[in-house]
């Protein structure tokens, strides 16, 4: 139960607490009313008892003086005669004690016979008899025994200063009880009515209060080790604590996504770097013996036998080794600036000429937009290599059109190539630039790797955007401050 209450949604907790509070208030109010009613009833009773007691005590003087027991009995019995009397204000028993404290007459003669000792019959009478014994005044004495449900009212019967006896009336608190039950029942009914009115209000209010929190909690629950891509949080916007928590959460969510994206990028970059280092190492290790082998074949061809079979074999070997060399060279991209001349408009236009035939053969429209006018301090061979790779990939992937844009701003040159072919799924993006990429459907799968390596060496960046019907590769190369010297 404890855990149940603890784990209960605020949606229910708030209305329940409202109801609890309302019930508690009702109970407290009822209790205070009951307490007051008890007090008033008791006071009413005592007032009534005292006034009746005074009348009876005065009336009893005659019969006691004349020792007329029957008359005394008739007098004390008279309140019990009226039929429609309010029984709750009626004494339970009325006793007249004589001067010796014995019963003179009582309204219950069978229980308290004449001449009997009332205290021996009912010890609760001891206190009131004691209390009235020494009194000379006519004022009533009230005693309530602790733990007893009876009240005792004692009045001395005095004639001309002489004490004739004592009138004792006992009242039970019994008649209070139906009155209390009535009040309590009415209060319970009113409480139920109030609760019936409060319940929908509390429900609405609880939902109003708990709603934003519940939504916030629901959003937060969806965040595991990764931020789901499709997470949409419809949070309340306000300046109170919940609104602020929502805003903070949104900010946090944005930062988390940014962080995840960066992490992914860094991982991809690092992987590519690791692959680059590995392949470069392997390439170097292959290149050295390869160079030796090619030299040896060369030397043999120049000075060796003319045996045609040998020559044919050597030629085969040379071709194979040459192929290995090409492949290794492709892996081992180094931005050695072979061509020292800067990039000119002409270089870019040459690339267009190179791919135009390929595009035409595939029936693909090549849109060309070259904004380079002046020479740029970038290695022209490498830039052309990049552009060529991008264009060839685009033509291969395109459906109808390839669009090429080359433009610069004050600090960088951008080569952007767009095609309208099948787009690259998101999950493939991290592996796009890996060598021998399985994504390359035709070709050796080194094109983008080479592009990436060159770009990296030139401190540039590659942006790939692929949506259905449109894939765009944009390589941005920073322009050195001074003309490229290396």
């Amino acid at each position, binding site marked *: 139960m404890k855990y149940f209450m603890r784990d209960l949604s605020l949606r229910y907790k708030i209305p329940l607490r409202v109801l609890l509070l309302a019930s508690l208030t009702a109970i407290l109010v009822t209790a205070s009313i009951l307490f007051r009613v008890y007090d008033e009833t008791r006071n009413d009773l005592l007032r009534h008892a005292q006034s009746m007691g005074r009348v009876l005590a005065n009336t009893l003087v005659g019969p006691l003086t004349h*020792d*007329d*027991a*029957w*008359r005394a*009995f008739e007098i004390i019995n008279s309140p019990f005669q009226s039929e429609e009397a309010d029984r709750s204000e009626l004494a339970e028993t009325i006793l007249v004690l004589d001067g010796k404290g014995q019963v003179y*007459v009582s309204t219950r*003669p*069978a229980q308290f*016979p*004449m*001449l009997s000792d009332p205290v021996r019959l009912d010890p609760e009478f001891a206190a009131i008899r004691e209390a009235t014994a020494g009194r000379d005044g006519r004022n009533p004495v009230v005693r309530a025994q602790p733990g007893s449900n009876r009240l005792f009212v004692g009045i001395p019967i005095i004639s001309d200063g002489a004490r004739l006896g004592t009138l004792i009336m006992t009242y039970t608190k019994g008649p209070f009880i139906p009155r209390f039950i009535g009040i309590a029942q009415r209060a319970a009914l009113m409480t139920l009515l109030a609760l019936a009115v409060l319940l929908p209000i509390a429900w609405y209010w609880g939902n109003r209060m708990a709603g934003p929190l519940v939504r916030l909690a629901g959003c937060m629950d969806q965040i595991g080790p990764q931020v789901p891509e499709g997470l949409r949080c419809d949070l309340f916007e306000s300046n109170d604590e919940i609104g602020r928590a929502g805003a903070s959460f949104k900010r946090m969510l944005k930062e988390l996504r940014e962080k995840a994206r960066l992490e992914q990028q860094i991982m991809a970059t690092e992987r590519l770097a690791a692959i680059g280092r590995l392949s470069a190492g392997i390439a170097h290790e292959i290149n050295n013996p390869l160079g030796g082998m090619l030299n040896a074949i060369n030397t043999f061809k120049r000075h060796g036998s003319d045996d045609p079979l040998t020559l044919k074999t050597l030629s085969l070997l040379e071709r194979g080794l040459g192929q290995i060399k090409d492949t290794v060279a492709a892996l081992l991209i180094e931005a050695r600036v072979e061509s020292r001349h800067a990039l000119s408009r002409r270089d870019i236009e040459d690339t267009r000429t190179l791919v135009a035939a390929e595009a035409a053969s595939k029936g693909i429209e090549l849109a060309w937009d070259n904004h380079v006018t002046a020479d740029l301090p970038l290695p022209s061979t490498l830039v052309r290599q990049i552009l060529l790779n991008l264009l060839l990939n685009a033509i291969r992937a395109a459906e109808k059109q390839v669009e090429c844009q080359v433009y610069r701003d004050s600090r960088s040159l951008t080569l952007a190539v767009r095609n309208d072919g099948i787009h690259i799924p998101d999950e493939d993006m991290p592996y796009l630039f890996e060598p021998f990429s399985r994504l390359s459907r035709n070709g050796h799968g080194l094109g983008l790797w080479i592009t990436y390596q060159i770009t990296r060496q030139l401190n540039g960046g590659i942006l790939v955007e692929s949506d259905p019907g449109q894939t765009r590769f944009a390589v941005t190369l920073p322009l050195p401050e001074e003309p490229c010297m290396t």
Partner: protein
Amino acid sequence: MTKRFEMAIFPLSRRRFCTALALCGLAPRALAGEPAPLRLGLTPVFLDDQSRFLEAWRLYLTERLQRPVVFVQRGSYREIVELLAQDQLEAAWLCGFPFVKNERRLRLLAVPLFQGRPLYRSYLIVPAGDTRTETLLDLRGKVFAYSDPDSNSGFLYTQHALSQIGERSDRFFARTFFAWAHRKVVEAVAVELAQGGAVDGYVWETLKRFYPQVTAKTRVLEQSPEFGFPPFAARASLPEADFAALRQVLIAMGGDAEGKALLAQLNLDGFVPGERGLFDGIGRMARQVEKQP
């Protein structure tokens, strides 16, 4: 001006006004010479607290006597006897005991017939819940209720019974009190205010007939021998004509329907002139009790 205006409203001279007054209110009796009302004293020897019955009986007597009848009721027998002695009453329904005591000043008028005879008994009653008490002797040290110190059945008989065994009421009982009416003795015993009581057998039987719920709470322990029924007694000085008229009306009650209906309510059968000898027993007892130390 003012005087003349008053004259206009009361256009009667003083003399004419007096005449008118006499004609309106006072004249009829004076003119008809109607006799003074006959004053009858009543005591609780019967159920004298039934006002409606008493009014019916009074009207009946008034009509039969051709003379206004007034009932006079007092709290004790003694007061009625005193009124009789002072000629304040013409006659009274008394107990046999005060009749015997004041015989010289009284004249036996009529004796009611109860169960066909001018006799009744005294009952010794105890609460119905008390099944252990068997005789008067078992009530030693108890609280006892008497009707009236001048009652035969409600006092004298018990005194006599105690004297027979050498006891006296004040020693024998722990406490005694007078309820001043037989009916109230029955009530006192019924609520167990008294553990025993002496009561007129006729009253007890009548209560049993009309209010059985009260007598059901009591049990008759002993019945006395028969005594003369509480009689109607006239003051000795009552004129013979009045005496004869009243006796005649009482005795005739059993003869007409209206009278019978009234008698039925009294639980009586009629009235007879009665004889002095009926009350000899009571006189004897009274003398014996008086002799007791």
